[in-house]
């Protein structure tokens, strides 16, 4: 078998060092095998399931595009889930990016003890998933939680947060902002430190203000990194699941029924695997469209040093 593979490679690439190619093939084989089994095969099956009625117990029953039609025309929860997810994304992404950027500018000051502050800022971001959810369930308690106690300290009566359909999404967005000092801030900080000082000096010579420096030097020089993180954050926000599952189970009044939560309920509570597969494909298409659109818009505002051809 091995011999056969070597022979095939020999025949296809007679002029290369056969041994190196064969070895390279061996080294990447874990990924290739993994991709075939845990990537390509599931993708193909997922397309097929999305065209079927399938409850795992009986064999899939082909029904054409019925799942997609039902989703688009007969399922108000589907649209609710899309709305909730878009709302969450529309606020979480800009707020978290701006928050991290401001913190990065702050910890870029070379004052004594700055490393300790960076560590403190980073700490919350290591808390994630279920623990984060449980902690914030208590933090957001309308009567005795820390958030509303703090608001009361300033004379404001806080909302019902997770118990109100109006405030449940803002509550989850607020929770996500606890980690603005994490990896994102570190990346922004590294990018800030990579900006050549001469650029700022030029602004100084021209008599520019702090704002001129920030808007005309910092932002353009950091735009590739900011852009990358906007793309990533949108993807993360589309995937939000654990918080809603643990904290609200989609309520109240389906106000936190996010796309992936609804998909999960369909697949693993109702065992409508075909329907859920169709949802997964719609999510993929939405993700692709949004990402492509971002790249298109990005071309207008992202500044790449040394021209586009640089990398």
């Amino acid at each position: 078998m091995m011999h056969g593979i070597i022979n095939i490679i020999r025949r296809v690439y007679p002029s290369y060092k056969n041994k190196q190619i064969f070895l390279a093939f061996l080294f990447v084989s874990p990924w290739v095998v993994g991709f075939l089994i845990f990537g390509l095969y599931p993708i193909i099956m997922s397309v097929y399931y999305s065209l079927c009625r399938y409850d795992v117990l009986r064999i899939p029953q082909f029904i054409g595009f019925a799942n997609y039609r039902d989703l688009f025309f007969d399922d108000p929860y589907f649209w609710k889930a899309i709305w909730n997810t878009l709302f969450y994304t529309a606020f979480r992404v800009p707020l978290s990016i701006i928050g991290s950027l401001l913190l990065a500018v702050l910890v870029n000051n070379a004052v004594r003890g700055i490393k300790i502050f960076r560590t403190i800022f980073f700490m919350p971001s290591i808390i994630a998933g279920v623990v984060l959810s449980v902690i914030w369930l208590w933090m957001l308690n309308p009567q005795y939680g820390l958030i509303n106690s703090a608001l009361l300290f300033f004379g404001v009566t806080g909302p019902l947060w997770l118990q109100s359909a109006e405030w449940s999404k803002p509550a989850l967005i607020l929770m996500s902002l606890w980690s603005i000092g994490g990896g994102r801030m570190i990346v922004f900080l590294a990018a800030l430190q990579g900006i050549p000082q001469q650029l700022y000096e030029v602004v100084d010579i021209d008599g520019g203000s702090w704002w001129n420096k920030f808007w005309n030097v910092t932002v353009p020089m950091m735009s590739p990194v900011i852009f990358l993180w906007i793309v990533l954050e949108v993807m993360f926000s589309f995937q939000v699941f654990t918080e809603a599952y643990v904290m609200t189970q989609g309520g109240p009044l389906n106000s936190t029924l996010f796309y992936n939560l609804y998909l999960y309920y369909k697949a693993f509570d109702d065992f409508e695997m075909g329907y859920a597969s169709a949802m997964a494909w719609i999510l993929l298409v939405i993700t692709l469209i949004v990402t492509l659109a971002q790249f298109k818009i990005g071309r207008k505002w992202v500044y790449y040093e040394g021209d586009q051809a640089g990398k």
Partner: protein
Amino acid sequence: MKRNKLYRNITVYAALAIVSLVLILPFLWIISTSLKGDEDIFTTPPQWIPTDLRWENYSTVFDRMPYIIYFRNSVFVTVMTIIGVVLSSSLVAYAFACLRWPGRNALFIFVLATMMLPMQVTMIPMFVLFKELGWLNTYKPLIVPAFFGGGAFNIFLLRQFFLTIPKELFEAARIDGCSEFRIYWNIVLPLAKPALATVAILTFMFSWNDFLGPLIYLSDQLKGTLALGLALFVGQHQTEWGMLMAASVLMMIPMVLIFFFFQRYFIKGFVMSGIKG
């Protein structure tokens, strides 16, 4: 000018202090709640220092929840996942960074493109596949995939690091008749320890906190991981905040310890991934 600098430093410190306070208060609040009885918990304004320290909250957690079993399960899944990810992603990254072969760059771009794929697309067929294999209620669905490639992001991270190793090292070893596997194992891996540590820690964070995976694949209660156990616990003890916060603190401790011991690797990982992309 000097006065200006003084003012500036005062402003910076004030801002740093305020932000730190806001970010750190939740931790203190949770620890404080975990040591309180109900009479201290349900008060307005909040009582920061408990009137008497209720360490029982912690022992109650151990009584009501098989914490040790969950902990052991979590450690097992996490350690196995880390081993799989580190071994396989470094192998693959070696081929992309240190070997020359046709189609290398095209395949690398393809590997990166797979990061775009939402896991929901593969989740259902994988569940069906693992069900057919009889792997439900075992740790295999959580561990085995880690040994096959170890994730596009980790491959990317390690490739970036391997590229910084001087080419002369490989050439010298090859001329001495060193096999590629030995170059990988005896030269590249030892040199790449910081990058491997970063991958290991990011994998730890992901695996330790993973909820959806265990939720789908582990239905037997005693097989659960800590994340799963804690989620179940919340459902059962909804208003017993003292005990719930004690359980949360217990789950946070390993993460916080790892963070403090390996801080620089956390930061390195983000810097390595974020800039060169």
